[in-house]
């Protein structure tokens, strides 16, 4: 009984808290987002949001810049970010795209980050953000430390040898199947080349074919859409699950006429 009252109170507070912050000036879209962190530097507040908790794979990150003195949102600024994983013996970054220098209509600067490792015993992630506000002619640096990045099994390495027999690593992540359903599911595959520990350029010229299989039934499915390149290392396609159960999805990746290899994912629902 006590537990139930507690739960009701807790649920109530969840609805109440954002309500208190409501501003009458505009609809606060950040209510639907998760605040990752908030940092202040030289009269500027930088808020970092994401759609959901950070996870291994493709993450959409949003920056909101607020001038502390005027309480105004800043909608034009040059923002660069550098996520770094700090491990015992080394540091490395991950694929990053954006943000653009103009905010979206909600005043948020959108960017994409592909985390390639979870935070935890192995190391910690932080994100260093440089903001150059040309209108006010100020620059700011803030660091979001100790970011929690959840593990998923949606990141795979595609390892192959190039023409000069050098080992090449493409980092592949599968996104969009967090909540799979029977029917056609949109999916996004990201492919980036691991050039150095700090540089992960997108790969834009791949042809990818999709092949879902149901090992318990011995069949695949009809109606799949091969992923095709859109932007920022993303390849968008669709997978059709004809029923619930355990599925594997093979993506066979080719560059020009050469087949680089196949990465396999498992989906169970």
């Amino acid at each position: 009984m006590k537990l139930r009252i507690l739960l009701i109170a807790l649920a109530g507070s969840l609805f109440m808290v954002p309500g208190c912050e409501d501003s009458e000036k505009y609809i606060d879209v950040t209510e639907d987002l998760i605040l990752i962190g908030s940092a202040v530097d030289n009269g500027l507040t930088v808020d970092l949001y994401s759609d959901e908790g950070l996870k291994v794979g493709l993450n959409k990150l949003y920056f909101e810049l607020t001038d502390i003195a005027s309480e105004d949102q800043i909608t034009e600024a040059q923002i660069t970010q550098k996520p770094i994983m700090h491990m015992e013996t080394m540091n490395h970054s991950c694929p990053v795209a954006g943000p653009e220098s103009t905010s979206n209509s909600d005043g948020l600067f959108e960017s994409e980050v592909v985390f390639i490792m979870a935070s935890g015993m192995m190391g910690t992630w932080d994100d260093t953000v440089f903001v150059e506000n040309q209108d006010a002619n100020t620059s700011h640096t803030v660091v979001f430390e100790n970011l929690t990045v959840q593990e998923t099994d949606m990141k795979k390495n595609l390892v192959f040898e190039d023409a000069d027999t050098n080992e090449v690593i493409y980092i592949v992540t599968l996104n969009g199947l967090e909540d799979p359903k029977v029917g056609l599911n949109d999916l996004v595959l990201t492919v980036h080349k691991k050039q150095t520990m700090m540089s992960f350029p997108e790969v834009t010229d791949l042809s990818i074919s999709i092949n879902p299989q149901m090992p318990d039934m011995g069949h695949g499915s009809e109606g799949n859409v091969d992923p095709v390149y859109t932007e920022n290392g993303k390849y968008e396609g669709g997978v059709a699950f004809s029923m619930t159960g355990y599925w594997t999805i093979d993506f066979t990746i080719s560059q020009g006429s050469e087949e680089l290899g196949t990465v396999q994912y498992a989906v169970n629902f």
Partner: protein
Amino acid sequence: MQLISKFLIILILGGRLVAQAGTVAGQVVDQSTGLPLVGANIMVQDSNLGTAADLDGLFIIMLPEGNTIISCSMIGYAPVTHVVSVTSGQTRDLTFELKPVTIESKHFVTVQGKKTSGHMLGHLQQTNLSTTENLISMIEGVSLIARGSYAQEPSIRGMSGGRMNVTINGMKSFGACTDRMDPITSYVEADALNSIEIGKGALSIQNGSTVGGSLNLTMNQPEYARKNMSQWHIKGGFDAGSKERKFSFSWNRKTPGSGLSLSGAYRKAEDYADASGHIISFTGFEKMNLNLGYKKRLNQKSQFLLELVSDDAYDVGYSALPMDVGYARLRMAGLSLKTRGISPHILNAEWKVYGNAIDHWMDDSKREDLFMNMHMDMPGFTRTAGSFVDLVLGKSAQSLFKLRSDIYWTSSYADMVMYPQDSTPMEMVTWPGVERWNMGQFMEYQSIIMPEMNVNLSLRYDFFHSIATNEMGQDELHIFYPENDLERRDHLLSANAHLAYNVTDNWNSVLSFASGQRMPTVSEAYGYYLYNPVDGYLYLGNPDLPVETSQQVEWQNSLTSSHGRMSLNLYFYKFNHYIFGQVMSEDAFSYANGWKKYVDGGVAQISGLEWSILHRFSPQFIFQGGVNYEESYLDDFQDFLPLIPPLEFHGSLTYERRHFWVQMDTRGAAAQTSNSKVSGENSTPAFLVINLKGELDILSGFKLNLGVNNLTNQLYHEHLDWGDVYRPGRSGFISLTLNNGILGQ
């Protein structure tokens, strides 16, 4: 003014009454069957005098002295005229024997009369162990599709499933099995049947639009009696082959103002053996059926009727399939209000509301060899509710108008869950919660245009609204039809015309034309990967399918003599947008041959003939026989149609006396080699089986049936049997009937 005219009429009639002197009392009967014709009109020429035959076909009419011309007419018969002379105070007998100018839009099997009757059905005896399917298959051109020894599906001239319209007392209901293992006929026990009405093709469209035919099962109804009385019977039977035990009972309470009837049947059968003694596993079943009817007279002209039907089958084995039926359950209720003579022009009116629910559960828990090595659940549900109004309008004895307005709603849902060992259960929706509305308007006009010629015209319009409502099912179909909203509206129009002519005194000829349409079934429009064990393919529905249409021409001839009848029907059907499963992929599945999609198969044709004969060598010795043959073709696929029966023939010889009868009957078919290649059909060899049965009234109210099926122990299966499973070998049966007659009432 009105008052005056009433007086005038009375005066005139009164004047006539004074002049009447003699009486004619008589009966109107059907010349071919001898059965009384209820409601036949008897008119005195050049006068206003007339009467109608009562429930026993009897009439009494007063006539003036001297010669009078009396005519008798009834729709469906050639009118007859007699010159009668009566003298004062005299009563004369007069029998009108009317010759049918038959419009063969429907064929009837009257079950309760023990013998089948109606057009050319002649003389097949039934026993206590006969099933509804047995009775239906006695009609020329009707075959059964067998998936086991239970719940065979009727097929009219090779057309079944969605091409047919099956109703119970006019009430729509739809099987809940995605594999058609529960045709509606399987939910009705033969004991509870009163009659079976079969319309071939679009010749009968009162109960719904169709291309292949209609089948209406009429249940026994409670009856009134002049004074309070009760009637009952109990029956028991045993078949040695399948060890089938059957018990049934009925109880009727009759009073002048109300009637109550209760009947039930229980059947349980084990696996049977074929002619080589090999036990065919998974052919047993258990079934219980209950029916309740209550009828009450509201006034002289009106009555209401309540009908309740409940049917439960358990552990029904399906030898041709990898799984069985755990249970199949029907609950049905209907309430109708009937009245006659509302106005001078509305002869009869009936209003009915009804509803029914069918639950069907496939089960493989009894199997050791599991399909794909995993257990599966396949439940299916249908819910149906509807209403119709029938009106019979008539002004003269020469023509009649029938109208029916009907509406129903039906909902179908089925899914499938598979349980692989040590892995995640797999679920898919196979019928995506399809909701369908149908509104229809039917009208029929019957007329005697010449004494020897009848015409009959029918027209039907239907509106259908269909939509898939289950979200998971919608997502599944959207894989294949991404732009389709899975909702459709269809307008259907069907019509037919019959012209019947008595060419000579004993030659009746009917020419019929029909144009029919039918909706794609739930499986055809919205089914999702439904496995068909006959061809080993999975079938995908197609919500874009057009409405299937048919054109039908039929020429029926019957010859009658004092010793019997003979008839020959020739027919031809042409279909457009014939719905057909087209192979889409052959290597997609390890456990199936591939998958097919229902498509517009283009033009298909069926043509054939039915010949039947009934001959009475002596009053006790009767022969009945028939042959039917048809051919089919599907133009675009250069293929034959599937499930087309081969040349079939049957014959029976009956010897009957007052207290017993013996019948030997034979059934056979030629080999079928015109097989549908696309459907993966095999050729079926010819066969001939002989059955022997008899009945003896031991005492008043105590009857014994004995018989042997498959007397010569033939090893055979029929072309329409799934999985080429052999039929039972020789088996004897016995049954007893006890009724209240034994108490000497």
